[in-house]
């Protein structure tokens, strides 16, 4: 798993991040300037140890405020979560050893910090971009020349014919295209792509550009197979999977096994290259969706309604 370590500009305009930054500042200033008064206000007493603990907390808050307002980054949000846990520990000790004076205020402070902790955890989790790079490779051989196989692949708008997860590809320029795909859990993802390498009859490579839902890149290589058997095609894809390893495991659990999918995609590319279309059966009338259709339609002719849906 890799966390995004760059300072992310979009956090500058994030109201939640800015709000938490100002909250840190508003807490930190009185804690550092008047620690005794602040401690009394919480009902925890103003002995020297209470004062120094309050000052330390204030310094921490000011540091978080500077970070969140100046150079926003998820690490400051996680810092706040750590600080909240520290505060809760201190307040729990204060409650345990309480002498009774101002107990109500201490309880109220604990409740408030608990609520703040929840907010901080939410902000930290949602503002941290996590992704797992996943690399897939698959190969097939088709009884076509490298030029024919290359030409077929180069027709990007035809890729959704045999690639199960692609809904649509639109060519938007000589080297650019817009892709739309189905993602696990019924979501749709879109991205713009550019062709990064193009060697006719040998290689096509591409990568997503701009703010893609899922950063990805890939390449297809075409080489003559030994003995004049046609063309060996090797495809590799690289995705930055959202949700980290957990997302990957969940996707697998729901039957979205990416390796199998790429194998199946290439098998269908082979069908298109060798016989001109993807083969449909009564059990798998949707053609490219065959694997996802289990349990399949019974192997019997479809009703008119079923037919319309399958061929849509």
């Amino acid at each position, binding site marked *: 798993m890799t966390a995004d370590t760059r300072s992310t500009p979009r956090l500058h305009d994030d109201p939640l991040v800015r709000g938490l930054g100002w909250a840190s500042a508003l807490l930190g200033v009185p804690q550092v300037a008047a620690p005794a008064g602040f401690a009394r206000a919480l009902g925890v007493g103003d002995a020297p140890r209470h004062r120094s603990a309050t000052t330390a907390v204030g310094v921490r808050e000011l540091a978080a405020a500077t970070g969140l307002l100046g150079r926003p980054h998820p690490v400051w949000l996680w810092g706040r979560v750590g600080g909240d846990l520290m505060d809760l520990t201190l307040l729990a000790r204060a409650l345990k050893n309480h002498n009774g004076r101002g107990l109500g205020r201490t309880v109220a402070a604990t409740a408030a910090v608990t609520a703040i902790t929840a907010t901080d955890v939410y902000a930290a989790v949602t503002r941290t971009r996590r992704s797992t790079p996943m690399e897939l490779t698959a190969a097939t051989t088709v009884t076509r020349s490298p030029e024919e196989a290359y030409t077929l692949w180069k027709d990007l708008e035809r890729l959704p014919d045999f690639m199960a997860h692609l809904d649509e590809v639109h060519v938007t320029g000589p080297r650019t295209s817009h892709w739309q795909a189905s993602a696990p859990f019924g979501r749709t993802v879109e991205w713009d792509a550019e062709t990064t390498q193009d060697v006719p009859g040998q290689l096509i490579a591409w990568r997503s550009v701009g703010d893609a839902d899922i950063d990805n890149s890939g390449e297809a290589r075409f080489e003559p197979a030994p003995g004049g058997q046609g063309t060996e095609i090797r495809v590799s894809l690289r995705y930055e999977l959202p949700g980290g390893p957990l997302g990957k495991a969940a996707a697998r659990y729901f039957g979205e096994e990416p390796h199998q999918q790429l194998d199946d995609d290439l098998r269908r590319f082979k069908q298109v290259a*060798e016989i001109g279309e993807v083969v449909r*059966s009564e059990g798998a*009338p949707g053609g490219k969706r065959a694997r996802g259709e289990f349990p399949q*339609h019974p192997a019997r002719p479809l009703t008119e309604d079923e037919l319309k849906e399958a061929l849509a």
Partner: protein
Amino acid sequence: MKATCWTGRNSVEVQDVPDPSILNSRDAIVKITSTAICGSDLHLVDGYVPTMEKGDILGHEFMGEVVEVGPGISDGTVRVGDRVVVPFPIACGACASCRAELYSCCENSNPNAGISEKMFGHPTCGIYGYSHLTGGFAGGQAEYARVVLADTNALKIESDLTDEQVLFLSDILPTGYMGADMCDIEQGDVVAVWGAGPVGQFAMDSARVLGAEKVIAIDKETYRLDMAAAQGYTTVNFEDTDVRSALLELTGGRGPDKCIDAVGLEATHGASHVEFYDRAKQAVRSETDRPHALRQAIMSCRSGGVVSVVGVYGGMIDKFPAGAWMNRSLTLRTGQCHVQRYMRPLLGMIEQGKIDPTRIITHRLPLTEAPTGYDLFKNKKDHCEKVVLTP
């Protein structure tokens, strides 16, 4: 239309289903005139093949008249009105396997190839009415069927041969023939055939056509052995005698030169303890197939001989006699039949009267009585050898 549907283990019903329609551009629709129940249909009915869905139409041996063709069918191939026999393996004709005439290993015709690849290591072809592992294609024990890639998967019959004479070109005649063909039979060979069902009978006929001097039939059903004996073949009943000893006796101690397994995964064994061992393992899925015939064939075959397997296996077996196979230089040859390779030459042999496929037909029923046909065939009632259904 009416169609024979699988409705669960040991349960077959004739149901009303929608008429088939063109799904791919090179499809054709055939109005079925004759169809048959195959021994391998029993593996489905008996529940040995996974990925069956309730309502699947059974049947992969059928013929009829073309009533519709898809827009991708080029002129001069299949036309409306043609009388055609449909081979059970769906072949594309364009992939490397098809170009090598290994049609049942077609790389393109099975939409569920990813699943069959998991079981078999590499994908296998689509087959009509034969589980979703082979694609989920509707079968041909019906009034109409969709023929896939019809320009490579329909044999046009232009002579006035009857349906019964040519129907078995769809599967069992080429399958039996391939069993013998893989043996590389030389003049004077002794060929032993395990299983005297329809495929076994045709393997025997083919062995004789290809030059075998002596053909031995091995089974336990006396009526099936009698059917073989009527053709002049020697018979061995494995319930009465030890097969290997009997074969050594019949071959002067050499063993048969060539052996054909026309039984497959549901074999039975004369010795009850061996039978029980494999049935128990099969029941707990520690093995999926019962390989008695294959084991016997390997142990009995002469050193340097060929064991040819056309009986169907689907998964794993235990106690494969690898020592006998390796130390005695045996050749093991196998395959689901590459029907498209053998149809035309066999049609010629039927026309010349060298092979009479009708000799195995014991029952003729209307399609609506298909469940009765299954019962007769599965339980070997009324001396049933082969059931032909007519819609």
